[in-house]
């Protein structure tokens, strides 16, 4: 079953067309990776799906985004969270001045079973439980990324969008994060992850799309896509 269906999507920032007619699907229960180099339009695509594109001066100018068979392009971003879409944004964007616990409270803003969700994310990242009263801005980079993911999971999403979760982190921390992502997926959450980290995408996703200057240039199973010469040349 298709959970997310992006069809012929165009996104612009004023005169700049950052996403030029891309189409892709995310099937329920899968981990799907969107790969591409700097400026390819990955973040723009995720912002279009989460709806926050309007907050950064961008606009969906064509195509459609359907979630669970429902067109959502016109739905305001905060309501998309209630529908089950959660984005862990590029650069983490944790609430620096709030404590770890308060960050999770805000993450669970839309849910009734806050206690259960808290239990779940504390189990996933026990370090956050230890640090719950610490000001989030004083966490290490890896801990901040864990907090960002935990916070994004508090709303109990059906689809978790991750924007370069491994960026700037030590390999050991990246391993921890990807183990957690696999675990989240095994518990039933569908994941769409944007990466430049090709190795992790290869081992942790069911399906891969490669995006270059706003267009999809390749797609398929991980081994198949990453063995294409064109993709190898592009992603290095």
């Amino acid at each position: 079953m298709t959970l997310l269906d992006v069809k012929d999507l165009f996104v612009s920032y004023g005169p700049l067309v950052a996403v030029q007619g891309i189409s892709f699907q995310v099937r329920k229960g899968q981990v799907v990776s969107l790969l591409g180099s700097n400026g390819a339009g990955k973040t723009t695509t995720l912002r279009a799906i989460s709806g926050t594109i309007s907050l950064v001066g961008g606009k969906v100018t064509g195509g459609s985004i359907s979630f669970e068979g429902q067109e959502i392009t016109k739905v305001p971003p905060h309501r998309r969270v209630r529908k089950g879409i959660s984005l862990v944004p590029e650069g983490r964007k944790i609430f620096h001045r709030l404590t770890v616990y308060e960050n999770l409270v805000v993450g669970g803003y839309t849910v009734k079973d806050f206690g259960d969700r808290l239990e779940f994310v504390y189990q996933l990242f026990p370090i956050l439980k230890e640090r719950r009263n610490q000001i989030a801005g004083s966490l290490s980079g890896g801990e901040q990324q864990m907090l960002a993911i935990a916070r994004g999971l508090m709303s109990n999403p059906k689809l978790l969008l991750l924007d370069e979760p491994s960026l700037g982190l030590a390999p050991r921390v990246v391993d921890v994060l990807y183990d957690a992502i696999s675990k989240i997926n095994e518990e039933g959450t569908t994941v769409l992850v944007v990466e430049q980290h090709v190795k992790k995408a290869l081992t942790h996703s069911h399906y891969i799309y490669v995006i270059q200057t706003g267009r999809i240039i390749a797609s398929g199973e991980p081994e198949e896509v990453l063995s294409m010469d064109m993709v190898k040349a592009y992603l290095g």
Partner: protein
Amino acid sequence: MVSATYILDLFIGSFVLWSMYALLAIGMSIIYGILRLINFAHGAMLMVGAYFYIMFLSMGLDPITSLPLSMALGAVLGVTIDFFAYRPLRGGPELSMLITSLGVYIFLENLVRIIATPQPRVFPLPEFLKGVYRYGDFSVRVIEIFTIVLTLVLFAALVLFFTKTKVGIAMRATADDLEASVLMGIDANRIIMIAFALASMVAALTGFLWGGMYGQVDPTTGFMPGVKAFIAAVVGGIGSLTGSVLGGYILGYAEIYSVGLLPPEYSGLRDGISFLILIIILLIRPYGLFGREVERV
């Protein structure tokens, strides 16, 4: 020689002034934190709040009903102003909101001038706040004690609201990072509405205290308190509640003591001293005492 009672008088005086500046500064800080808007119109909300109170009294209501009603009406007015004046400008340059807030100030002042005439109005204090306590040479008015206690209670209540309730924490989160808060399912417009309602309600209450302290109001009453509260908020570090309260204290203290202890011919420097403090603090700490550099994306 300066007597001990005189110093005590000054202490009470500065405490009272602190309370009112701090209450206004908190409102400005809440709005600034979320919208990055220095709301010049905030001082006018104090003045309008005082007029609302007089209006309800003249409709025959008693003071105990009139005060909450004037605060509620202040909240409604604040939210309405946000809806018509600021909301259409969101996402645009911050400067346009700032200029609009100046326009809103001028609009409110003149609207009151037309409706209620430019003449000062007597501000009738309720009976139970009219008394004076005397201990020998020293005297303190009930309204002064009321103002101080109410401010402390209100400040404690706000601290609880911002640290213990989901909406309060969400408001701080929105002030920290608006885009991220939207990603958590928070309706930013609703949070901004709550911020305006809260700030305007407190401003209306400050209007009641101000009127009660000085016995009269006129359409320009809100101007200087608005400017002082702005200075207090900036001195404390705009966006920080603790900072606003501390800034209000520094300002009220400096103002009263400088006027009280300097020779009478210097009392005209009162407002100048506030600006002097502002300049000195900003030279030493450009983001205020409790402020942090604001990162913009």
